[in-house]
């Protein structure tokens, strides 16, 4: 991910809203919140969470991008790119 790029505030806000339902640790959800280290997500939770993200944004999030997604901001940037590639 390009560290200087900023995701769209709408995408970020939607992700934070979805994440709230998966936030079992009570961690404050910020752009730099990390899925594995801060939220204790394991591969099964990631899968469920991504499925909700896909349905909410009506997009396909390929598994292939996940190794590059560590933080909420990373995912927001990835979602923005998918939306852009889809011409939305």
């Amino acid at each position, binding site marked *: 991910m390009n560290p200087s790029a900023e995701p769209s505030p709408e995408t970020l806000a939607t992700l934070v809203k979805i994440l709230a339902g998966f936030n079992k640790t009570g961690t404050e959800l910020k752009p730099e919140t990390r899925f594995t280290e801060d939220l204790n997500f394991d591969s099964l939770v990631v899968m469920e969470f991504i499925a909700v993200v896909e349905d909410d944004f009506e997009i*396909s999030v390929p598994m*292939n991008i996940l190794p590059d997604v560590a933080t909420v901001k990373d995912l927001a940037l990835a979602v923005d790119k998918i939306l852009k590639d889809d011409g939305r």
Partner: protein
Amino acid sequence: MADLFDRWAPLRAQRDALFGEGINPFNVVMDEVLSQTEAMIGGRCTILVGTNNYLGLTFQPEALKAAHDALDACGTGTTGSRMANGTYYGHKELEAALCDFFAKSHAMVFSTGFLANQGILSTLMGPEDFILMDADCHASIYDGVRGSSAQVIRFKHNDPADLDKRLSRLADKPGNKLIVVEGIYSMLGDKAPMAEFVAVKKKYENVYLLSDEAHSMGVCGRYGRGVPEEAGVEDDVDFIVGTFSKSVGTVGGFCVSNHPSFDTLRLVTRAYIFTASLPPSVVASATVNLKIIKNGGVLRKRIERNSEQLHSGLSALGLKIASDVSPVVAVVAPDPVTALAFWRGLIEAGVYVNLALPPATPFGYCLLRASICAAHTEEQLDRVIAIFAGVATKLGLIDTSAPKVAARA
């Protein structure tokens, strides 16, 4: 500097704390194999209800003889890859036998089932393509798609509507799509709704379907060709991957297909090219057992009967079984500590099942995974059910004040 293995320290600590000093379920040693259904474990004759030997063919006399003959004729190994010096006449005979068995025009034999999935799934689809896989697929499928240049999207387990939704989002994108499912899933024994998946596939253009029939080959369908045969949709399943290490009773993997250019995969599949081929004795026993399986209606009846006996016997005790009747009967335990105590109680009483813990299981289930063999006798399974009852009672998992239910209706 951190040690190389430090990142697994939490897992080790968790397992050490769980297993303590007692027998480790993941380090069981069979000191002597007595038959398809019994072995000596820890000095005790133990009923094996945790193998994948569904048809009980590991000691099939004709296969034993063929293996011995091949060993004498061709030696202990090929010492080479299929592409170089590792293709003997036996490998070609086995591929012909697979074509005959599955009624498909092409077959490719790999050295294990894991390699068949890894090889096919990492190779088949290109950078413009998409793989849509069931979320509960086996590790070999996950490893395969990870090596693919295609985009990989998971859909909810056994959920054709969810697949449909995900395919519809890709409908406008160029590139081929491959749906990947399994006939029967190994952990819970649940079956794919194959006809429904085929119906979804047919709604869209350029969509292929691959099914891993590892646990259903030999078990489902009139001729043992698995869930696609049973569901009557074989022509719409474009690729079938499978293994010789379950019903076929030996080791090895394969993929069969009617695609006219299928043999191209021999030129480009690294797991086929860069590994040694199967030893001739293994190839010979697999070839013989395929014929036995094709005509194995009696064995399939026995599996059905045995599955029914174990499933209904354990259900009647009040234990929670993870799926409907199938050759895999997975009992759900409430937590890892109880699951381990259950497993140890069973092994100490002479019953071996598989212990399966998260993250290797769906829904975070802790499972006592029993699997059926056609060679299990009614008496053996009655004994298994009685031992489950004893251990479950001791652990307080079932209500002992309830009237005693016969093991079998």
